[in-house]
């Protein structure tokens, strides 16, 4: 647990410093246990989609990201105040707004620690989600299949280099 909170601290400090996107990414966090709390998660799910919208991906990966973030107890205060600022304290109404309006609301918060935290967490969690990997056609570990040596290592045919 001590190590986990060190990593969270690393991530928190990283997102507050401009240009530390790399540190934020490399402070990758473990998956958190799924949390309760519908309101917060619904907002986080919507925010995750607004940050990186993949309409064909379905909602489940975004729900997983939201659950992960909501379970980060050490960020609870940051998330609560950030979401309040995002929605103007009117979560239900905000969730029903137009996408363009929601995105503009998010953009207004771009320089805030809350936004940078959300961006880093969403990016890391969403792009490590296995459903996302399938959607992107990312081969991931081919280890279970003996590596790429016999599985498409050298199979593109559009270069005209042979």
């Amino acid at each position, binding site marked *: 647990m001590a190590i986990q909170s060190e990593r969270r601290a690393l991530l928190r400090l990283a997102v507050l410093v401009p240009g530390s996107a*790399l540190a934020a990414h490399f402070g990758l966090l473990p998956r958190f246990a799924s949390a309760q709390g519908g309101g917060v998660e619904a907002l986080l799910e919507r925010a995750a989609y607004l940050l990186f919208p993949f309409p064909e991906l379905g909602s489940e990966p975004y729900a997983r990201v939201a659950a992960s973030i909501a379970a980060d107890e050490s960020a609870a205060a940051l998330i609560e105040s950030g979401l309040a600022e995002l929605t103007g304290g009117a979560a239900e109404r905000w969730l029903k707004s137009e996408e363009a309006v929601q995105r503009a609301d998010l953009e207004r918060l771009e320089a805030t620690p809350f936004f940078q935290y959300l961006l880093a967490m969403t990016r890391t969690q969403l792009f490590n989600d296995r459903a996302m990997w399938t959607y992107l056609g990312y081969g991931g570990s081919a280890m279970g299949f003996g590596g790429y040596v016999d599985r498409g290592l050298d199979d593109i045919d559009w270069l005209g280099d042979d």
Partner: protein
Amino acid sequence: MRQFDNEDDSVVVVIGSGAGGGTMAAELAGAGVDVVCLEAGAPLEDIVTDNAAMFPRLTWLDRRIGSGDLPAEFPVWSGKNVGGTTLHWTASALRLPEEHFFPTRYFDGLEDCSVIDWPVPYREMAHYYALAERSMGVSGTNGWPKLPKSNNYRVLAEGARRIGLTEAHRSTMAINSVARDGRPACRQYGFCVSGCPINAKWTAANTPLAKAARSDHFELRDRSFVLTVEHDSKGRASAVVYLDAEGREQRQRARLVCMAANAIDTPRILLNSTSRRFPEGLANRSGHVGRHYVKHTFGIVTAIMPEPVHWERGTDNLGGVDDFIAHDDKRGFASGFKFEQVAFDPATLATLSRPGEWGPEYAEQLSRYSHYTGLLVMGEDPSQPDNRVTLHPTEKDQYGMPVPVIHYVDHENSRRMKAFGFERAEELYESLGSTEVFVGPPPPATHNMGTCRMAASPDDGVSDAIGRAFDVPNLFFSDGSAFSSSGVSNPTLSIVALAMRQAENIRKLMSEREL
């Protein structure tokens, strides 16, 4: 494994078990010299091909503070394991060419820098490079074939060809292309950066440390964090103070000390080792300890191709383009750079391609993940005296040791070099039909060099032509901190070759009763 007594002052203490420390251990213990190796990290068991899972297990995450052009958090990416950063490295095994031992020739007249030539006679290097390549199983040498072409390499090579370049090559790599030395051939998993699960990649753990362990002259103490090196009344290194795995302070006496804690922690330990005789830190009469930090100048270029690439398939950094390495007066900057191919997993791509970016346009680009390709622009950076490692005046880490502060600013020469490199990379990718090319900032520094550099004179550096401290006759620098300049080559092969050469010199001095 042998166990030596802390009071045994006949042992050589090697600090760090990476490319340099592991090699020193093997070369000395293998010759019958007793060695105690102190490693801050733990043995790495159980490697899985999952970057997110492996990162916290491989990486030096103890606090370091970056300043200047470095990110404030996590400025340096090095390893904390038995085997050091070699568990993580992607195994490009390249020799420094002779011209890079004489950087004053082409940096001639450059202002605000502290460039010096290597004091090592270059003619000696061929022998040690050959020994290193044979010991590491470098594919593309010794009759071992290079690793096979991958899609991502072919894209880079074809783009290079289309813009008139002729020096696209698969690199010589410390990755088995055939089974040898008890380790299998590469299966192209493509997670080299997270540790090779089958040990096709050479590491200090699977080769030199294993060799040292087979001798009867070696003890590895892992989870041992070095705080200071002590000296006796004659100014000779006499003991190493460290915290053991239980956090208890220990003092191991030493006949000779080899510093191989990487170019950040080697000077850090010395700066932390002050005394009346060495008020600025052990071996630091010149004031050069920690200074002249070089790391190569880097930029990342990613591009979306009109057709799939599947860049994640296979060895991460298989090849590169060498046409731009040689110095050319007409380009408006000194020295040169190369392109090195890269591949990123989806999360790393999203972070590094367009940092800070989000929204539907970026998501649409990332949805074409399978069409991405990319390269690193990697160039020589001239030494600057204020690019340096220092100790934070008040902040301490979990061991009670002052946190290192690493200051680094790109020289104007490096900025011009990278601008030129980015233009060429854009041309290369456009020749293949790309209209979406993105330039990003450098990753955390993985090639860390120069901070206790070898020099011809004690006025200019910390150590002599065999990496022996000018101020302390039984203190040696066996890692990248000894480098006099960065050149354009990934440093690990040179670290191993120089360590082999240093070990031979130490053995000779021992037989002459000088050490």
